């Protein structure tokens, strides 16, 4: 069994989601980490120090700003070069647009948003916004899976194979039919939603983009990331990258605070695995209270300042 984990890196630093992907891969066997693009070699040392990592392969170090098309081609080549039987990546936006393209070239199915790995060929994944879990067996020669970050603990850093495990992989960077004109990064200083211990989210009950900001001081005191429901994003109260739910980010923090969120199924899909769920809503009938551990029927604009002052 050769387990290849494609670990995303930005400017020589691993994305935190990559540590979760390594721990999913390590459940299968010793992990070969694949690092691609400019910064790959610089990220190799960090990758080699992650528990469960046996080998690190870096490639395309000269290629700045790779597109999904080029990355898919590189993943396919790496699968062949390492004779991978498994390809695992965190279910990030980039992996979601890249790996299915690679699967088409490998002529295999992809197992998406896997939450549990039962055997080298058996994977568990959610359906219908998490209302059901399917246990699926793959008969493909190469198993390609994206894993849900919230379902696998981050692999610890500082106990991996070390520097001798690192090698360059000679791959040909495929020409991209798409030209990347600009990359707009936002909220780089914010606490990452996927990794936050506490998430403070607002819904339609926040009433306006201006009033949505009342969550920020509370989030900052809690060291929390700010999330939003789709209703809040659709109404323009919060930017799309803050959206928690079936079609946004999937989070499972220690504490999830939901303010003015009714609790639509598609929102629950993104936060139902949180350790403790606290809901504040004016409507006592709001479905969010059915999935919450602690509830308070109240005006959030009166509650938030009280919480903030108490911390």
């Amino acid at each position, binding site marked *: 069994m050769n387990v290849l984990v494609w670990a995303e890196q930005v400017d020589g630093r691993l994305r935190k989601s990559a540590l979760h992907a390594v721990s999913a891969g390590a459940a299968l066997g010793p992990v070969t980490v694949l690092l691609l693009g400019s910064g790959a070699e610089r990220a190799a040392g960090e990758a080699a120090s992650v528990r469960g990592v046996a080998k690190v392969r870096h490639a395309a170090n000269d290629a700045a700003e790779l597109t999904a098309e080029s990355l898919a081609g590189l993943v396919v080549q790496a699968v062949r070069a390492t004779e991978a039987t498994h390809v695992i990546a965190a279910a990030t936006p980039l992996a979601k647009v890249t790996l299915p*393209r690679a699967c088409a070239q490998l002529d295999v199915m992809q197992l998406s948003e896997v939450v549990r790995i039962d055997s080298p060929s058996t994977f568990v994944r*959610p359906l219908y916004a998490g209302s059901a879990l399917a246990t699926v067996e793959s008969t493909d020669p190469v198993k390609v899976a994206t894993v849900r970050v919230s379902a696998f603990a981050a692999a610890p850093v500082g106990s991996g194979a070390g520097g001798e495990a690192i090698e360059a992989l000679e791959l040909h960077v495929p020409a991209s039919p798409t030209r990347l004109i600009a990359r707009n990064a*936002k909220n780089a200083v914010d606490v990452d939603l996927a990794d936050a211990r506490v998430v403070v989210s607002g819904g339609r009950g926040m009433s306006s983009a201006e009033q949505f900001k009342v969550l920020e001081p509370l989030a900052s005191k809690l060291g929390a990331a700010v999330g939003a429901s789709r209703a809040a994003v659709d109404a323009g109260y919060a930017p*799309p990258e803050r959206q928690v739910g079936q079609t946004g980010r999937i989070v499972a923090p220690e*504490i999830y605070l939901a303010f003015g969120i009714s609790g639509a*199924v598609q929102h629950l899909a993104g936060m*139902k695995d949180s350790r403790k769920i606290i809901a504040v809503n004016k409507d006592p009938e709001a479905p969010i209270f059915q999935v919450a551990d602690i509830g308070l029927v109240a005006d959030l604009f009166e509650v938030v300042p009280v919480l903030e002052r108490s911390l």
Partner: protein
Amino acid sequence: MKLLVAVKRVVDPNLRISIRPDGSGVETAGLKTVVNPFDEVAIEQAVRLKEAGIASEVVLVSIGPAAAKDTLRAGLALGADRGVLVQSDGAEVECLAVAKLLAAVARRENAAMVLLGKQSVDNDAAQCGPMLAGLLEWPQASLAARLRVEGEKLMATCDTEDGTDELELGLPCIVTAELRLVEPRYATLPNVMAARRKPIETVAASSLVDAAALAPRLRTLKVEAVDTRRHVEMLRDAGELAERLQELMA
């Protein structure tokens, strides 16, 4: 410029689903179905390109049982011109096979662009678009939040982990739609009536690709319901919540 839009028949996402007693899958019989909401966005975008004089025709394609004809009709009522039903009876068609069938239709129709929703709300796999792009070796604008056509190029703003990417693509290409790409219109009664007269061609899945392409790669061993309900402890006031939050943070 001909646009092809892939539409999937899905159970109305507002309905509560149940699992078959033998755990073999989700019971969908008798439940109301709709056009996958993300595909509605893709249809709307395609129709707007036609209304702007950029596209000449909007063709919808759906892969599924005969009942998917109703799904195509619902899509035609939003302004598309005609439909193609790729009929597959029996087992569910996996994403890879769907992508192979869509590739065959895209080639046959000589489409300049194939638009799809970024994911379906039943399977949540979000694979079909990039898989199709990979099979056709076409450029892809995935998770598209905004797009415009400039001559023979497509300019797209696509969502990423940290924000957005601005991409320039040659045609033909694949687009997968985010919900915020455009807001779908409601079908007016006259348009629903007009859609009844629009042509829908039915082709057998087996006539487009060989049997090996349709062979399943995955086997569902079991499907279980997930009960998300918890026992909620209702508090009296904000002060009490502040105390509980402090305890949890400690």
